[in-house]
């Protein structure tokens, strides 16, 4: 894969534009499973447009931190996204260890969202913030293990940038499992689980419930309204795209000579991930909160297993 700038930037533009589609697809799939018509696929676009036009109700308890939360959560996803090899094309920003930067940048967004939640002084938002902080901490080792496994696959210090997302997620793994390394198949599983955690989907979190006591992400943004809420929704969609792109980077082999075909296949894979999320949400129930930690521990263990198997070879 040549670091071709044009297809990459096209993929980036696609991501920015098409990200709000993913929740729509998920909702549509869920509705189909439930036998309902469901919301339009473009519902989030309408919502965003409406929210951006509206004013905001801001709590008297809050300070600038409250406003910084949505802004930073959106800005950080903006920054993290181009570090990925979008559409299967190596990022022009790729450097050794960029996966660390991406992870920490996303962490920055999450940190400020948590603070914004605490800034309202609401008990419910504090609840969400506390859970978000704890589960994010537990998810981090699993994510790192995934990255390291992928780095280990191509382990050779003579390859420049062997510790870069652009090397990890541009088709090597899929080629590897095609070469009879089935342990690599564990990785999509773990990453999918992490996607569910990071984006607050069932079975970890239920974005549509009406019971605040059981929510994680949604309850954190109860007080945000207007453009703030729009930023948050959009950032969430972009983050979903981010993780879907990770998955797509693993499963789509880099065998296409035409970059536009590759872009198309990649995007299709991302859409497929959204469908998969929808299916999962439809067929699974939400787990109890104390089980989430175990689930994350399990994900970490699987990733560690994958890493060890990779290293042994």
């Amino acid at each position, binding site marked *: 894969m040549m670091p071709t700038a044009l297809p990459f930037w096209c993929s980036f533009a696609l991501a920015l534009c098409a990200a709000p589609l993913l929740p729509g697809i998920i909702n549509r799939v869920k509705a189909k499973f439930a036998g309902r018509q469901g919301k339009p696929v473009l519902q989030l676009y309408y919502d965003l447009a409406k929210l951006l036009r*509206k*004013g*905001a*109700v801001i*709590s*008297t*308890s809050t*300070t600038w*931190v409250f*406003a910084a939360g949505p*802004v*930073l959560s*959106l*800005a950080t996803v*903006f*920054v993290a996204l181009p570090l990925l090899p979008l559409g299967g094309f190596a990022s022009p*920003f790729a*450097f*050794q*260890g*960029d996966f*660390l*930067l991406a992870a*920490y*940048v996303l*962490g*920055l967004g*999450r*940190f400020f969202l948590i603070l914004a939640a*605490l*800034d309202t*002084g*609401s*008990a*419910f938002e*504090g*609840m969400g*913030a*506390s859970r978000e*902080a*704890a589960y*994010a*901490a537990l998810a*981090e*080792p699993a*994510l*790192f*293990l995934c990255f*390291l496994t992928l*780095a*280990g696959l191509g382990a*050779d*210090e003579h390859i420049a940038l*062997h510790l870069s997302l652009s090397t990890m997620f541009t088709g090597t793994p899929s080629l590897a499992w095609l070469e009879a390394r089935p342990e690599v198949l564990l990785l999509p599983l773990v990453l999918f689980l992490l996607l569910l955690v990071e984006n607050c989907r069932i079975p970890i979190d239920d974005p549509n419930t009406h019971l605040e006591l059981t929510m994680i992400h949604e309850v954190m943004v*109860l007080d945000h309204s*207007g453009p*703030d809420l729009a930023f948050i929704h959009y950032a969430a969609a972009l983050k979903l795209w981010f993780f879907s792109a990770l998955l797509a980077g693993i499963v789509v082999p880099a065998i296409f000579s035409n970059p536009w075909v590759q872009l198309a296949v990649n995007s299709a894979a991302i859409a497929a991930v959204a469908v998969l999320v929808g299916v999962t949400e439809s067929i699974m129930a939400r787990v109890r909160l104390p089980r989430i930690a175990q689930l994350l521990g399990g994900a970490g263990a699987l990733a*560690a297993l994958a890493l060890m198997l990779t*290293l*042994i070879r």
Partner: protein
Amino acid sequence: MELFLVALALLVLTASFLAAASLVPQVPSIRLCVHIAGPAGIILACALGMAGLFHGSWGAVVPWQAPWGLPLGGGALALDGLSRCFLLPVFGLGAVCAFSGAASLFHHDIGHNIAAHWFFYTLLVLALALVLTARDSVFFLISWELMSLSPFFLIEFDDHEASVREASWVYLVAAHLGAVVLLGFFALAWHMGGSSSALFAGLSLSPAMGSALFVLALVGFGAKAGLAPMHIWLPEAHPAAPSHVSALLSGAMINAGLYGIFRTYTLLDIQGGTPAWWGWCLLLLGLGSALTGIIKASGQSNLKRLLAYSSVENMGIMLMGLGTGLIGMQTGHMGIATLGFAACLIHMINHAAFKGLLFLCAGEILHAVQTVRLDLLGGLQQRMPLLGAAFAVGAAAIICLPPLNGFAGEFVLALGLATGVTLPQMEIQLGLLAALTGLALVSGLAAATFAKAYGIAFLGEPRTRLAANPHLPTAYNLVPLAFPAAACLGLGLAAPQLFALVAQALPLPQEVLAPHTAPLRASLHTVVLVGLAGMGIVALLVLWRRHLLRGAYSQKNSTWGCGFQKGTARIQYTDASFTDPQTEVFSRLMGVQVQSSMDKGYFPAHASYSIEAPDRLRLRLYAPLFDAVRRLCDACKIIQSGRIHLYILYMLATLVALLLWGFAA
């Protein structure tokens, strides 16, 4: 070097002035004089010292011979890259904390002997500077002990409180026990090298002797650095000390322990190469400290204790860097070595900036609200926006978020560990990667912990009346905070330059370093660029948001209570409830004690939930140990029974025993 020496001379001068002033009656004119001259002298000396550090090449070794009057040892001093790196926080924080201390002590000190306080402060800075430059065992030990003892007098500033007395005692004992091990270390090194300064010229040793020295150094210096099983003095001493002192101790003094370990390693030349277990030992100890520190920190509700435990965590991260460097050296992988050593030094410098900032902020909170217990705070951001912003910067920096400075150190370390995947030996790969995973967990927990620290203390509604009406800090109080805050941001943006500076101090030949430093500098440049881009995006988004809201109808209202209309500050999440999800996972490790009570029935009128995480190591290991020794001693006191007949019998028995022993053979 000349500037550095002038700085030392100025410190000596200030110290003697303060010593003289502390012995005369504390009349107002003298107090005023001390208030102004003491901190001013320290700040000036620190500024001179700082200038001295940057004067000349960073990596160059500049020796100097101080006059020496003792029958043992000698006055050899030298500035080299490593010393310069560790002196950076000493002079930087030394000045900032003196400024902050001067501002906070100016009004509050009736009855205290302020001159004595500043005297010991000056002594601490001076002794630190000497420790970091001494090149002779006896000189080093004397400086070390001065450095260990003077904080004791700073910590016990408010000695009318029993907890402060207890804390200062714990500090003193820990410091002294560490120093005793160091006495053994230096005496052994002297024996091995043949002279008191031989150690500092490098010792060539057998593996067994080298390892003995290494272990002694690790225990002795580790006690000062607050490494995991020996960290117990940190969470006691820091809450007790005045905050400007805590900041200096945590940001500069405990580094001296790390310096000792680092320096010792560079000086020991083991025949047949460094034993492999050294590096692993350091890495494991570092990871253990980091995890212990952060897990304990997350369970604390006293902000200063939390910060103290976080120092344990950060020292652990630095030690992990050192261990990684050692492993890299030992396996011949210079890239990993470079990254590891550099991570250690970068994180050390950065830690000084943000930990100093956070402790100073904690001091201002204490000053404003009279408490640093998180469950009594809240809403301070609204009331003290600048202080809150400073704390937010510190918190974001300490959890290593880009573009602030903390990220660079952790990035370099993680990269070093991740490079492990390219190594041929599987066990080394696994070890390094496991450490990286641990590091990820540590950083995740750190984020949760500092979200709690900042969120509960500064955000939301005030939980008490005092927090609602804090005693607002003056500009004099806030100005000192600006320096470390600026350092947090500036060092983050200057990460490549910082790395270049640190690289000159590494214990590796420059030609070995060169192929590994260039790519890393490039990476760091990209990080900075991305950071700048991110800041640009944030700025744009802020402007856009403002534009959007300007046109639209906006209003201020109280927080939505999800239908619960009588929202008071008491229904907010507290630090205990915030920690609850982590407590469920780590309760064993955290050692939390949960106290919850609730009235029976469907509509309990009263309920409370609080958690406490006392140091179990202290309560279950050290306290019983000390108690057992004491009981043993008490039991042995029976031999002094007060009866003169017995005493003479002892003499008789001794005489007969000696005669039997002497003539039986």
